[in-house]
């Protein structure tokens, strides 16, 4: 039994509900014991780091301090969100790399009666412990319903394999962990060149054009590779590619329809679990048609329609993939 201190992060309760539900459905099969860090707080995402250095790291480190106090029989912290994982890993690493900085963080933590010894915990992402602690062979043994014929684009996003302080990943730009996992589930995995490109992060809120272009690149690449679905390991990536796909289509006058799922949802399907318990239907771009292509029925997602383009004729515009469908 592998035991971990679990840091779910804020999005697991809201935006990434499908991730949360599917993880809860599968983790026992993997022989995991996930003990939630009691009274954890938000990691500050990329926002707090932009404002105040020391408060930002103190906010993150409160979680590490709580985890090390709670640790009974394990020193491994697992986060399911890439941004949370990176923030926790950052604090763990930089507090040790610059001891005087680490001491200042601890001075702030002391005001709340807490303390954290940098490096005393290991910080991992969920995918990392599934691949390295459970292992591909064990996962293969659990597969009862191989995802045969499902073309999947594996999308890891940027904050997992980079900067990779503890050398946990096979490569910084083209890691194979997610590909190996999906192959073990029997899926047909695309050699996806944008595997660790950026989903735009918080730019959807700040510079929408910048974000939409990054989203377009990813979705259009998956579309050109004829992927049935794209698979992510991070709530932020899923949110950007799924929830903002409609607005991106609107922005570029394209008509992509690429379902974005969490890897845990596909693991659940391959392990033969009830699709109703795996968070299907929570996506904004419906995945049920793609899944039914390989004979798997999952709850359909009701799609809310984007506003129609007012005019389909006008000045000549550069052609974009998907234009044909819009022109009708």
């Amino acid at each position: 039994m592998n035991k971990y201190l679990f840091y779910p992060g804020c999005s697991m309760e809201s935006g990434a509900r499908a991730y949360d539900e599917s993880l809860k459905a599968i983790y026992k099969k993997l022989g995991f014991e996930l003990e939630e860090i009691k009274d954890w707080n938000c990691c500050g995402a990329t926002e707090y780091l932009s404002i105040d250095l020391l408060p930002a790291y103190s906010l993150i480190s409160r979680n590490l301090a709580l985890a090390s106090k709670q640790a009974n029989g394990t020193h491994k912290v697992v986060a399911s969100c890439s941004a949370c994982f990176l923030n926790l890993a950052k604090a763990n690493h930089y507090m040790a790399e610059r001891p005087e900085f680490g001491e200042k963080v601890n001075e702030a933590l002391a005001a709340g009666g807490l303390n954290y010894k940098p490096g005393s915990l290991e910080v991992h992402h969920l995918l990392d412990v599934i691949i390295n602690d459970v292992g591909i062979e064990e996962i293969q043994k659990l597969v009862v319903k191989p995802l045969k014929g499902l073309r999947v684009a594996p999308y890891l996003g940027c904050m997992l394999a980079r900067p990779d302080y503890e050398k946990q990943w096979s490569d910084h730009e083209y890691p194979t962990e997610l590909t190996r996992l999906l192959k073990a589930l029997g899926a047909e995995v695309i050699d996806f060149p944008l595997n660790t490109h950026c989903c735009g992060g918080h730019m959807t809120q700040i510079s929408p054009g910048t974000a939409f272009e990054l989203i377009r690149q990813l979705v259009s690449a998956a579309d050109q590779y004829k992927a049935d679905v794209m698979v992510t390991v991070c709530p932020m990536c899923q949110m950007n590619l799924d929830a903002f796909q409609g607005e991106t289509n609107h922005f570029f006058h394209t008509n992509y329809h690429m379902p974005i799922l969490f890897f845990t949802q596909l693991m659940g399907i391959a392990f033969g679990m009830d699709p109703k318990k795996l968070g299907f239907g929570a996506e904004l771009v419906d995945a049920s048609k793609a899944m039914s292509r390989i004979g798997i029925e999952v709850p359909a997602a009701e799609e809310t329609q984007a506003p129609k383009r007012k005019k389909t004729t006008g000045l000549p515009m550069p052609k974009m993939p998907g234009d044909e469908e819009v022109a009708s």
Partner: protein
Amino acid sequence: MTAQNHPPQNNKSNSNFLEEVSEKTAGVSRLDMCIQCGTCGGSCPPAADMDHTPRTLFAMIRAGMRDEVLSSNTPWMCVSCYYCTSRCPQNVLITDIMYALKGMAIKEKRYKDSTAPDFSQSFIGMVENYGRSFELGLATRHYLMHFPMRLPSMAPMGLGMLSKRRMGITPPKRIQGMDQLKAILTRAKELEVD
């Protein structure tokens, strides 16, 4: 903001701007090791939207161009994808330096466009009050303030997120240790100024 409004210590520290930025970076920045190769800018997804590529910005930091650096949109366009950081042959902590520059620009109110700083500040306002983030409250406030024209094209997404229970209407439950968190953050802010 005009030059005479700067706090006095900033005027004389232009030549030490590089040290100042390094000091405000979480890890060991290695900014002084930059060899101006441009790998960072070449790897940067949003480079086209930046006033200066990271390489240019680092040359400007070395030249002590404090005003220009802190009012550049470059750090605000950074998407934190760490391509530059992992490719840098000198292991400069480029992404973390961008965070440091954002913090400095906010403190001195040097940013040209308030969209990103406002978003960051609204976000941490939620976190400092609840210990958790709250997407609906944050998004509504932010869109009304900065992107009112986007609301119509956003509507299907917002409704979808609500109807699929991916966004709550009520604020999150406060964490139990809210007082503890506040004490930690207050102390951290005091230490930051020292």
